[in-house]
């Protein structure tokens, strides 16, 4: 399978290369002296001999006009296709980091290009890199930085990134300068400044591959955040140092005043960037406060404001990376509360998409450039670069960890330190910085070659071995992704306890500052920046998330959200049944018909440029409903019906569904009485026997299987899958895999009502029949229940669900 896809890819690659080659040859031949500007379509330049003026050209090709975007598109496509290619075969990506594969593909493409004498694309220039390729990568990292963890370990992260980078740059630079003094190597012309510049370039670590491994093996949080934060801030510092050294290396003479100014510049650049980032972060948050009516534009603000921060910082030659990262960090919290759930998902996906495209392209170019560009190979220089990189990194981590351990409550063990040092892979940014050295720079080729050699060595050797090493060393791990209400409650309680104990014994530490910040935040920032200012505890938000999950899982397993009240609602609503159908109902019936019958042609969805289509979700629900019905039809007559279905086939006389129904109604009409209903439902007298209490709220009682909880909390690695796809993918195998050792398989996880004796015997006996009935009912009576569903979906355009107990008026446009 793997080899097949690689073959296919190679074919595609070859085809594209031939295409580009042929077309650019045509471009070269037919080129007129004045190159056409893309903005003037009225004056086309013909690639073929121009027809006579008096005739209307029937067919013409205008390749030069589209050349640049066309080639960029092809490159992106090619790189992305390559990525798909090796994700088809899972076993590769488990053991070999993605960037290795990308570089390999790049090497292959480069080889082909080399053999047909194609020049490497001129896409990667300084401006392109700094203005288009770099921002998505850092924005993504900044946005997905686990804020809380970061601030808890802020000092260590900054210590390692700032001091560590300086240490590495200067250490490597100076020792390489020492090597250059040895006559036998023939590299005496490289002076100190150039060596320092190279040291800076080569000390940018880019541990994407390592982070992916860390995340997969659930490494302990401290280590994770330090490596993550280091990679981020280290970029900022390297870029600042890079421009500084680039400037210095082009000077003839360096005075001490220059060094002083350089140091001052370093700080100004860093703090200036942070200031702009903060400014734009708050502006972005403030803007999203008013976007309730233009939901479709919400993601734009996030991207544009952060990009603006980046550009403005660049304008003042401040650290643009610092600016964009700070901007993302600042706005994330507020923006995610202001924007709709969907926009939030969109923002996340776009960030992931852009960053992975940039990174893919850079690695790809690395591969291509390795083959196609001119190299200057110097064994001594390259060999010593590699050695110094490893030695200085190891030493740096060791020394810095010893120092910082005195200030940390949880010190880094030697295993941690080793993983940190070993995780110092070089990557995209290192390559780009080396590649972007000006052509006039002496020994540029040597530097590029050395950088490529180090990258390939670290990415291939360290990247592939780090996983087995971590396993072997048994580095302390933690289960970061565990998300249950219990854990959330317990850890909140624990935090409060700790804060209380700190107050009690009169000690200050980060809980104190956290408390202070929270106060300021609640008192001022939230009031200004957040539209619907209601302080929310994380327990409540987690609970709501889980409820939503819950609802979706029920939907998935039972095939319909109105499954439970359907029986009751049939009886309840029959008298008031309207004669005419609602439009949504008609639509859903049409949809039903079109889905179940042979598809002749697709219906066109109504399209407006200015609003998001609302049908998708309804459609999805229906789709899933059909699939589950089909499934249960197959299973009918066996005991293997989905557990949740059993619950929903409770006899309609069960009283506890009444309040729920009322709640649903009230949330549909959107009146405020909903709150009272909720209250009446929840505030049951505590004196009652527990069994009854349980029976009181079966719906919220039903918890989704544990592994589903992770999908709401979109984590870094999850980027490739959309949450919706996730629900679909939920297979028994994946579940048992994830929940190993917990003993919660599908069946078990979904049967809490049994535990509470909710499920009466009669129901058990009639189970089969009822299932059958339910299906029949669905197929032949699209009456009240479906109308309710349609109405619900219509009123439910945001991801709010009646189960969430939120008053609907919030969401009215």
């Amino acid at each position, binding site marked *: 399978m793997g080899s097949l896809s690689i073959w296919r890819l190679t074919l595609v690659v070859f085809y594209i290369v031939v295409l580009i080659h042929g077309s650019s040859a045509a471009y070269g031949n037919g080129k007129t002296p004045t190159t056409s500007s893309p903005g003037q379509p009225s004056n086309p330049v013909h690639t073929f001999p121009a027809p006579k003026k008096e005739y209307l050209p029937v067919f013409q090709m205008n390749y030069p006009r589209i050349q640049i975007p066309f080639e960029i598109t092809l490159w992106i496509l090619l790189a992305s296709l390559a990525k798909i290619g090796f994700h088809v075969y899972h076993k590769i990506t488990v053991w070999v980091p993605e960037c290795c594969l990308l570089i390999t593909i790049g090497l292959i493409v480069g080889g082909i290009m080399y053999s047909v004498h194609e020049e490497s694309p001129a896409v990667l220039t300084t401006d392109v890199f700094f203005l288009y390729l770099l921002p998505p990568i850092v924005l993504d990292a900044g946005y997905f930085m686990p804020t809380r963890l970061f601030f808890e370990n802020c000092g260590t992260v900054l210590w390692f990134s700032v001091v560590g980078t300086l240490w590495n740059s200067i250490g490597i630079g100076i020792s390489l300068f020492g090597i250059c003094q040895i006559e036998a190597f023939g590299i005496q012309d490289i002076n100190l400044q150039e060596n320092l510049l190279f040291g800076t370039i080569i000390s940018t670590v880019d541990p994407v591959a390592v982070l992916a491994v860390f995340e997969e093996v659930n490494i302990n949080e401290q280590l994770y955040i330090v490596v993550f934060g280091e990679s981020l801030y280290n970029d900022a510092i390297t870029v600042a140092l890079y421009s500084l050294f680039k400037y210095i290396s082009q000077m003839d003479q360096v005075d001490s005043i220059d060094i002083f100014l350089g140091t001052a510049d370093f700080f100004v650049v860093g703090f200036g960037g942070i200031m702009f980032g903060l400014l734009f972060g708050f502006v972005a948050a403030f803007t999203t406060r008013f976007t309730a009516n233009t939901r479709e534009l919400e993601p734009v603000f996030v991207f544009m404001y952060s990009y603006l921060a980046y550009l403005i910082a660049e304008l003042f030659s401040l650290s643009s990376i610092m600016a964009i990262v700070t901007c993302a960090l600042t706005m994330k919290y507020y923006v995610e509360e202001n924007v709709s759930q969907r926009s939030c998902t969109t923002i996340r996906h776009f960030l992931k998409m852009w960053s992975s495209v940039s990174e893919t392209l850079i690695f790809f170019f690395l591969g291509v450039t390795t083959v196609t560009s001119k190299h200057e190979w110097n064994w001594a220089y390259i060999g010593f670069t590699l050695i110094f990189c490893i030695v200085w990194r190891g030493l740096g981590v060791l020394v810095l960890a010893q120092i910082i351990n005195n200030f940390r409550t949880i010190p880094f063990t030697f295993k941690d330190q080793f993983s940190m040092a070993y995780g110092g892979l070089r990557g995209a940014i290192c390559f780009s910085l080396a590649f972007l050295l000006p052509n006039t720079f002496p020994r540029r080729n040597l530097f590029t070659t050395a950088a490529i050699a180090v990258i390939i060595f670290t990415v291939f050797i360290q990247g592939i071995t780090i996983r087995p090493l971590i396993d072997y060393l048994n580095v*302390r791990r933690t289960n970061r992704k*565990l998300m249950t209400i219990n854990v959330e409650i317990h850890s909140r*309680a624990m935090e409060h*306890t700790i804060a209380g104990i700190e107050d009690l014994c009169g000690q200050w530490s980060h809980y104190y500052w956290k408390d202070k910040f929270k106060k300021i935040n609640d008192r001022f920032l939230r009031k200004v920046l957040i539209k619907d200012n209601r302080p929310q505890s994380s327990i409540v938000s987690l609970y709501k998330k889980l409820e939503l999950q819950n609802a979706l899982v029920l939907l998935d397993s039972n095939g319909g959200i109105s499954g439970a009240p359907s029986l009751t609602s049939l009886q309840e609503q029959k008298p008031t049944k309207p004669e005419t159908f609602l439009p949504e109902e008609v639509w859903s019936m049409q949809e039903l018909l079109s889905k179940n019958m042979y598809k002749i042609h697709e219906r066109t969805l109504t399209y407006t440029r200015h609003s998001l289509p609302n049908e998708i979700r309804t459609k999805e629900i229906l789709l899933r409903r059909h699939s589950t019905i089909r499934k249960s039809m197959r299973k009918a007559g066996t005991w293997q019906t989905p557990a949740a279905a059993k619950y929903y086939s409770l006899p309609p006389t069960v009283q506890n569904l009444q309040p729920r129904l009322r709640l649903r109604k009230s949330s549909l009409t959107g009146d405020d009485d909903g709150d009272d209903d909720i209250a009446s439902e929840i*505030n049951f007298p505590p004196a009652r026997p*527990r069994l009854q209490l349980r029976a009181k709220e079966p719906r919220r009682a039903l918890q989704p299987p544990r592994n589903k909880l992770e999908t709401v909390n979109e984590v870094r690695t999850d980027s490739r899958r959309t949450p919706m796809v996730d629900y679909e993918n939920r297979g028994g195998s994946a579940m048992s895999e994830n929940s190993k050792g917990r003993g919660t398989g599908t069946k*078990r996880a979904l049967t809490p009502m*049994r535990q509470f004796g909710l499920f009466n015997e009669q129901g058990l006996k009639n189970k089969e029949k009822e299932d059958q009935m339910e299906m029949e009912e669905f197929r032949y009576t699209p009456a009240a229940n479906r109308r309710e569903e349609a109405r619900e979906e219509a009123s439910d355009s945001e991801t709010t669900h009646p189960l969430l107990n939120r008053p609907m008026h919030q969401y009215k446009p």
Partner: protein
Amino acid sequence: MGAFHSRPDENDIRHLAEKTGFSVEQVEILHRRFKQLSRDEDTLQREHLYGIPDLERNPIRTQIVAAFFDKRNFDKDSPQGTVQEIGFEQFLTVMSHFRPLKLRMTEEQREQLRLEKLQFLFNMYDLDNDGKISLEEYRHVVYELLSQNPQIGNESAAIADAAMLEAARICMGQMEPDQVYEGITFQDFLKMWTGIDIETKMHVRFLKMDNTTLCK
């Protein structure tokens, strides 16, 4: 038990430091704090702790204060009931549950520490000391945790119930139809914390420097 007189001597401090795992300086600092809180008395009472202004905003301060007077947390001989006032040693013993990890620790020590910390937390929930967190107790804690936002007062019970169900699912797996989950036992509690390294989280950084004068 050794309620100290106004100034503990070297030996006592060393003895206490050994017993609780604090350093001598930390014991001294905590002793000063103890004196400050107890207004120079030898024993500490609930009122003293309630009087700390910083603690006032803490939603679960009742539980925190109660933990100090709970015999389960410091009296190994008769872990039952509560006391009205505690001496410095008890104060220190309760505090010692919040010691951070040491760099070099064997797995058993780590596990032991983890158990101690979790037991302490468990005791904070289990008010009636029957070895089970019942639904009422759970609700009470959740209610207090969320008591700072008035809007969600009603929801807290629902959340506690959901959490309880979740606990039942995690701990009991499949249950018989007539079986009732009575409460979270300590074993269940441990089960829920599996995979979360509380020993690295539940700690206070006891400073070596004295800043008690800065606090009220």
